[in-house]
């Protein structure tokens, strides 16, 4: 709440923008422009936004190259699936999200404390390994129904719920970045030794960013399981971690706005490519290479859309 208060005015503005967007989508649904196919696409995009902002926090702001996001997503997804199959109520679903987040936080601490000492690509491969270990354990457990995965999961994550959750997690992440903690992790990213000499416990702050990212991933996983109503261990492999990474880098490492834009662009692209049959992944790959070669710092670089700046420029114009 302390963090929220500091940016109260802007947060209220964001609330209004988000509410307006919500009503727009709702009207489009009622008019019938958004059918269940487009709804499906939107929900996938929103879940990807949650995943990408969380990973961007870890990679872009804390400077820790993690390739294990899908592992935490798997934890959230399986927590939601297992608990809601037992407790088939909305309360059970909320509980399952909380449980998923708690387990993901514990896992992130266990993974993070030793591995966050590693640097760059070594950290990437260690986190990738950790995520794979999580997936393989899930693949062999009885309670997770092994490789067959879980299906007939009750659907509590309707599109309004996913949308609101996306807004909330994005606001939390953005406020964390704009808070003292955010400035600390960025100082750690830019120069670890300098930050340390200023009396910052770098390991603790790196871990804080890692844990927050993992928690949002678990929420996204829970939503994924509940919306799709079916999950399998293979959904959370290395390729899933990579596809989240692609969103982050495509949007611009260190730009939350970029992550949102990239999630939308890739989501729409993926949907359009369904018409291309076997060629779809070839086109996707070429698009990816071209965007990266011609826009190496991502679609938006580190540019961030900010209501604060918008206000400032409006004020300037008035004067």
């Amino acid at each position, binding site marked *: 709440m302390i963090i929220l*208060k500091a940016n109260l005015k802007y947060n209220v503005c964001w609330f209004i923008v988000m509410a307006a967007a919500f009503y727009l989508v709702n009207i489009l649904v009622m008019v019938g422009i958004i059918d269940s196919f487009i709804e499906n696409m939107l929900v996938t995009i929103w879940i990807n936004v949650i995943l990408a902002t969380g990973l961007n926090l870890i990679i872009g702001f804390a400077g820790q190259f993690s390739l294990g996001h899908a592992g935490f997503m798997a934890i959230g997804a399986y927590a939601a699936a297992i608990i809601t199959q037992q407790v088939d109520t909305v309360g059970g679903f909320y509980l399952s999200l909380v449980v998923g987040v708690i387990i993901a936080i514990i896992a992130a601490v266990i993974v993070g404390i030793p591995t966050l000492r590693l640097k760059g690509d070594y950290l990437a491969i260690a986190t990738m390994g950790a995520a794979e270990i999580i997936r393989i354990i899930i693949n062999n457990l009885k309670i997770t129904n092994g490789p067959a995965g879980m299906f*007939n999961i009750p659907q509590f994550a309707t599109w309004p719920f996913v949308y609101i959750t996306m807004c909330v997690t994005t606001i939390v992440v953005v406020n964390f970045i704009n808070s003292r903690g955010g400035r600390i992790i960025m100082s750690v990213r830019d120069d670890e030794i300098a930050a340390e000499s200023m009396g910052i416990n770098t390991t603790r702050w790196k871990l804080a960013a890692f844990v927050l990212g993992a928690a949002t991933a678990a929420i996204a996983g829970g939503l994924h399981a509940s919306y799709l109503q079916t999950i399998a261990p293979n959904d959370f492999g290395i390729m899933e971690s990579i596809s989240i990474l692609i969103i982050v880098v495509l949007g611009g490492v260190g730009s939350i706005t970029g992550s949102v834009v990239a999630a939308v662009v890739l989501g729409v692209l993926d949907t359009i490519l369904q018409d291309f*049959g076997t060629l779809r992944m070839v086109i996707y790959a070429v698009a990816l290479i071209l965007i990266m070669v011609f826009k190496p710092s991502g679609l938006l670089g580190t540019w961030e859309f900010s209501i604060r700046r918008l206000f400032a420029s409006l004020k300037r114009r008035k004067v």
Partner: protein
Amino acid sequence: MEKKAFKKIMSFGTAMVVAGMLAGCSTAKSASKGNPAGKTIKIGVNMELSGAAAGYGNSQKQGIQLAVDKINKAGGINVNGKKEKVTLVIRDNKTSTSTAASVAAQLVNKDKVNAIVGPATTNAGTAQIPNITKGAVPSVSPSATDPDYTLQKNGKVQDYVFRACYQNNFQGSTAAKFAYTNLKAKRVAVLADNSSDYGTGLAKAFKKSYKGKIVASQYFQEGDKDYNAILTSFKNKKIDAIYVPGYYSEIGLIVKQARQAGINVPIIGSDGMADPKLAQIAGSENASNIYYTTPFSTRVANQKNTAKKFMEDYKARYGEEAPTFSALAYDSVNMIKQAIETEKSADSVKIAEGLAKIKNFDGVTGHITVDSKHNANKPIVVETLTNGKVSAAKEIK
């Protein structure tokens, strides 16, 4: 201080109000049920054309296209005395659950298909169920084998979910019976594909109904190429047979490496290896003493008209022996055709009703009866490979 507190309350208040407004909204729902028949009958294909299961998905696509072309050449499907042509809408689901759900939504809502064939895997299949149920469009999966695939959580049958293949329990227990009684194998090692429900499900069913001793139980992953370590560990366990539920791309390598390591005991598998490519990968000199359960036998097929015709057509069009996956997909299309003809309507809800009523339908993979759980019941055959060729086929009752 007061101002701060006020601000705090305000921020809370705003948050609550907005959240309340968001949550209070009702979401719109469409009222119509099912996709009515259009000028032509539209069959959607939700298939693994890229990604891990692309090999199997593309085999099925070939079977589907063959079936539809054959129907159209004959003038189409007889809907209440009027012949209507079939159009295919083929979409790739990347072997991914979320894409399979999206593809299903697109087929149902945008393409307005009357029925869906696919997906090939259980995971992608279960992902499409919510969307096709919402749209009331039936689907026939050629190869989703999980026993619970066609069932809801409470054990009731899913109204719009059908399959053309066996479910795992039936096939696994048949293999167990065959190993114990026909091959007289008292000690068996199980080596199962651990990356899909298919391998693990069959292994579970086999272990449950096998009367002998299971001396070793190991797993492999899809795409694995080296099985020497596992096979060496089997070698001094005095096994009488190995049960290998999985697909031909991996089993072919297992057969090859087992024979080269000097393990000559019978290798028993499932319909995932009923493909001519198995012997090519294993090398025909190694592919002896191999048994597998299958609905579709190239040997039995020669004595049956439907299957014989299918095999000739397939070879003429694609220049290769028909794999089981193509045969199952071919049957899936024709099951939909049968349903339309009995119901005299190509309305998607009617097709679902027709599919549930299929009895003794003369398919390529045997006479199919759809039971109350929407499983396809048909006879099961155990084929024997000797030097890479099918040397015997025996129906198991």
